[in-house]
């Protein structure tokens, strides 16, 4: 004992040992992560009972690390049952029977490089393509979201560290057939299929993965007409079809009307019904020919247009047989036949305040009371807009009404009261409006305004920002009356029977009914004198435009300078589009009463 007590170092060693022992026993668990959230691969591994086979696929295709790393992805995760079913349907017995590339392709088809929750699903494609390069299509069936019309989502919007997981009950497989093959293999489309082959469009619509195609041809949309639709018009086979349409008897010739007929059914770019509804016009392969689209009571209608005030019934797309996914696009079927409409150019007298969209937005206020064109920061109708929209006085732009006896009356009793200015930061500088349908051809554009001394000079642009943009040569100076600056004096206006032609030579015209004009209904009330107040309603020739496609186009009015500084008021009444070679440029004239036209004195 004494031996020990003298050897103090032993105490020291013991103490140190005790300290070590005690510390060693206390294992401190420090949390080394900032969150328990796992990434996509981690989520699958936490739920192995459901996804073990898909995990296997991920590892075999060497993409597990990819989905475990940071990024923004959406994975459609098939359950084990789904994978088993897929293996069987491919005639194989296990995942090992697939090559690495096959597995990688199938994984890529299940991943979108974006986080897409179900709130962003529409009745159409997911807006970002899969890593495979093709789009997925979503809809709802049996009250459940579906992908590609086959796989139902059984659990949605699972948030992980690098994206969203949706669990699906079937594997997604890229569509095997191209548009050409789908049409060819469907016996209901036999006439249409043969016509495709005869016109050469079969090759346009054919695609095999791996083929290199121009970007704009990678996805296409075709609207087919089934045999029964054609038979309803007495076309029982291809021979009859060719006989009816092929006027050059050479369907491969792009001038042949059968070629044009088929071209008119094909659109570059994959457009699902949802895209068709929203685009309003489809640009077809037939040069400069468009299909107009319309959405009404959940029907999608093609070429149903009001033309010259007459409703032309269109063709309805068959929803249950549309949105068919192909490897290179989408197929739709129409319930009725439709073709290029041959139309002659006609003058269009566009009352700018009575465009159909605006009238429906105005409701009971139409021709009744003043209404701001802006509500809650946005235009009240989608047929017009201002630039910029976020200026402080934007709400003063309004739809206005007038009375028949006013010093400044308006055609149809209404007008657009705009405040445009290029210098004031509180006012928009431009106003843009959609025209009615214009048949392709050349037109003179007459801007009909009511004189306002404070208004800006307007530059008119046709289809701004489009390939066929045209800036019109003449400025519309809204402070100008018909006399004086127009080059024609008041005396001439009042007394010279030839004054209309003199005005025309200067690029001006009267558009409001004037004393002496003839009205079939004998209206004489409110006609304008030839001088004085009668010079305030001015039609100004802005220039000639070349309309390349029969469609609704856009006109922009841009304020470029302003003679005075006060209200910047621009009072627009009408725009006339009159075919350029039409000798009649100044009649008919218009009146406060809607629909009353006035002609040359008889």
């Amino acid at each position, binding site marked *: 004992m004494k031996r020990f007590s003298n050897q103090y170092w032993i105490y020291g060693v013991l103490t140190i040992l005790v300290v070590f022992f005690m510390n060693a026993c206390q294992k401190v668990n420090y949390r080394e992560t900032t969150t328990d959230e796992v990434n996509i691969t981690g989520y699958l591994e936490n739920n192995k009972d459901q996804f073990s086979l898909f995990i296997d696929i991920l590892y075999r295709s060497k993409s597990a690390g990819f989905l475990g790393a940071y990024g923004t992805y959406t994975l459609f995760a098939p359950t084990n049952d789904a994978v088993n079913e897929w293996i069987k349907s491919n005639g194989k017995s296990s995942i090992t029977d697939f090559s690495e590339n096959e597995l990688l392709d199938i994984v890529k088809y299940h991943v979108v490089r974006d986080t897409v929750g179900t709130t962003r699903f529409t*009745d159409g494609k997911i807006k970002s393509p899969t890593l495979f390069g093709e789009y997925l299509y979503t809809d709802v069936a049996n*009250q459940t979201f579906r992908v590609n019309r086959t796989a139902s989502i059984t659990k949605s919007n699972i948030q992980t560290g690098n994206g969203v997981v949706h669990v699906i009950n079937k594997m997604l497989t890229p569509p095997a057939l191209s548009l050409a093959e789908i049409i060819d293999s469907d016996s209901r489309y036999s006439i249409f299929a043969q016509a495709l082959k005869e016109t050469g469009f079969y090759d346009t619509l054919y695609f095999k993965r791996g083929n290199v195609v121009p970007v704009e041809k990678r996805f296409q949309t075709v609207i087919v007409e089934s045999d029964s639709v054609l038979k309803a018009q007495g076309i029982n086979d291809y021979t009859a079809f060719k006989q009816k349409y092929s006027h050059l008897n050479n369907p491969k010739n792009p001038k042949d009307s059968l070629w044009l007929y088929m071209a008119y059914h094909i659109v570059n770019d994959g457009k699902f019904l949802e895209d068709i509804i929203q685009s309003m016009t489809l640009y077809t392969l037939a040069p400069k020919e468009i299909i107009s689209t319309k959405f009404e009571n*959940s029907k999608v209608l093609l070429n149903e247009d009001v033309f010259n005030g007459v409703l032309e019934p269109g063709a309805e797309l068959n929803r249950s047989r549309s949105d068919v996914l192909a490897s290179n696009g989408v197929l739709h079927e129409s319930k009725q036949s439709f073709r290029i409409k041959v139309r002659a150019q006609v003058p269009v007298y566009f009352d700018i305040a009575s465009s159909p969209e605006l009238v429906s937005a105005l409701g009971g206020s139409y021709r009744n009371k003043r209404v701001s064109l802006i*509500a809650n920061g946005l235009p009240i109708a989608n047929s017009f807009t201002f630039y910029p929209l976020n200026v402080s006085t934007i709400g003063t732009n309004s739809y206005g009404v007038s009375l028949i006896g006013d010093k400044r009356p308006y055609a149809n009793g209404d007008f657009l009261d705009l405040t445009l200015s290029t210098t004031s930061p509180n006012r928009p500088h431009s106003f843009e409006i959609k025209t009615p349908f214009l048949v392709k051809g050349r037109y003179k554009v007459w801007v009909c305004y009511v004189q306002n001394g404070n208004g800006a000079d307007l530059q008119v642009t046709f289809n701004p920002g489009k390939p066929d943009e045209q800036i019109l040569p003449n400025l519309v100076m809204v402070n100008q009356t018909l006399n004086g600056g127009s080059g024609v004096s008041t005396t001439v206006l009042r007394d010279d029977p030839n004054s209309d032609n003199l005005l025309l030579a200067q690029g001006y015209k009267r558009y409001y009914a004037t004393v002496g004009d003839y009205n079939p209904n004998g209206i004489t009330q409110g006609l304008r004198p030839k001088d004085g107040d009668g010079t305030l309603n001015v039609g100004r020739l802005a220039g000639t435009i070349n309309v390349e496609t029969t469609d609704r186009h856009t006109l922009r009015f841009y304020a470029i300078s302003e003679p005075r500084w006060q209200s910047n008021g621009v009072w627009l009444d009408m725009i006339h589009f009159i075919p350029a070679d039409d000798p009649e440029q100044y009649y008919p004239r218009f009146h406060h009463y809607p629909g009353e036209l006035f002609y040359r004195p008889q």
Partner: protein
Amino acid sequence: MRKIYIVGLLTLLGFVVTSCNKWLDLQPQDGITKAEFWKTKEDVRAALMGIYSSLNAGPVETRVFLWGELRADMVNVSSYAADDYRLVKNYNVLSTNDIANWGALYNVINNCNLLIDFAPEAKAVDPTFTEATYNSYVGEALTIRSLLYFYLIRTFKEIPLKLKGSYRDTDVQNIGAVSADKVLSQLEQDLKQAQTLVPDYHVTLGNNFSINPSNTGRITKPAVHMLLAEVYMWKEQYALAEVELNKVLSTQRYQLIGRVASNSFDISSSETIFEISHKDSRANPLTPLVYVGRIPYIALTEVINMDFFPPNMEVDVDKSDSRGEGVLYLSSGMISKYGTENPSYYNFPIFRISDALLLKAEAAAEQGRGAEALQLIAELRESRGAIEASNRQLNESDLDDIIQFIFEERAREFAFEGKRWFDVLRLAKKDNYSNIGVLIDVVTKIVDASVQQSALNKVRDVNSHYLPIHEEELFKDNTLVQNPFYLK
């Protein structure tokens, strides 16, 4: 020397003792504890006023408006609305959507529960607390609680039913949700009890008949009858509902005011049975949402002007319905029912006599008395100056059409009052969802074209007609079970 010590020690002692005094007192300085409250009838009255105050604070009315209008066909979202609400309109709701936030209502429910729990304590110690006053306070709290639970079950179907107040942390417990039927039978029982407690008038009117805000801004017996009638209508027990409605109508206490004007809802009128009062109190929370400034919600004029207030085309072209465009809403979509200035102190109507008339008409039609139903609608329409274009020429035996007509008239009469969706849902779910077509019509009218087909498919699942339980609530109470529609 010793004296000095003693004096010194005593002084010290004095300091120590007094300073400790405050130190040991742990009463909060800026509030009242439960031990000090619930002593007098004034305390209970203050608690009751607290209930009404939490009712008109804003969140409750905003919820009622959103739940009752957003999914229906009379209100649209403008560009200023939050994405969550746009998704609600497009029938694309997740359990994280703010629309499912029910906190505001449970807040008021808790205030009601506390009063019901503790008023007896005050009654026991305050001899001046009369039976009648006590009954009235408890009855009012019961009715308001029932009113809010009724909104909740119509919105969520299965909800937590809490009938005890929470005033300390241990009172907050996981109670899970109970079925709508259970809640409805609880409401029926509570309201029957409230009927025996609440007086006809809080302020007796003198010979000069006039309207007193205390009788419209506080629950009176007719309001209890109205709520019970609505509960019976929801349960499709039309005969029972009619009994309650007759009790209201037979009083002759309420009269239609005739044509309405844009400021008719500013103050209580001879029509008002119960309203959330804002007069001389807080501003109406809806004015900045629907009229003044950058408003997120606007009237869906393209549907309203076509389906509910079509203009006369051939006869009497100049006539217009007094509830239509230009009066209670403008063509730009601004809704003027809740005032046109900011702040506005318009009241938020809950029950009006026109509601009793139309419910009675519906109950009559449901029981095969078409002629009586038509006569009641005609009475209201004549008073409001309804026009021929919105009239329906119906035979008294076309009961289904008469009921459709009643719901159209309800849309006109209660536009933007947070009733339309509940009306449409009541019509749709009747007779085991035999009228689900009306919901499909609504979806066709309001949902964006790009998701319309999805929405049309979803609406066929009856569970989708109720909102999900919010994710946060599921997290707080793990015994809550999510609506199965939102689990996929």
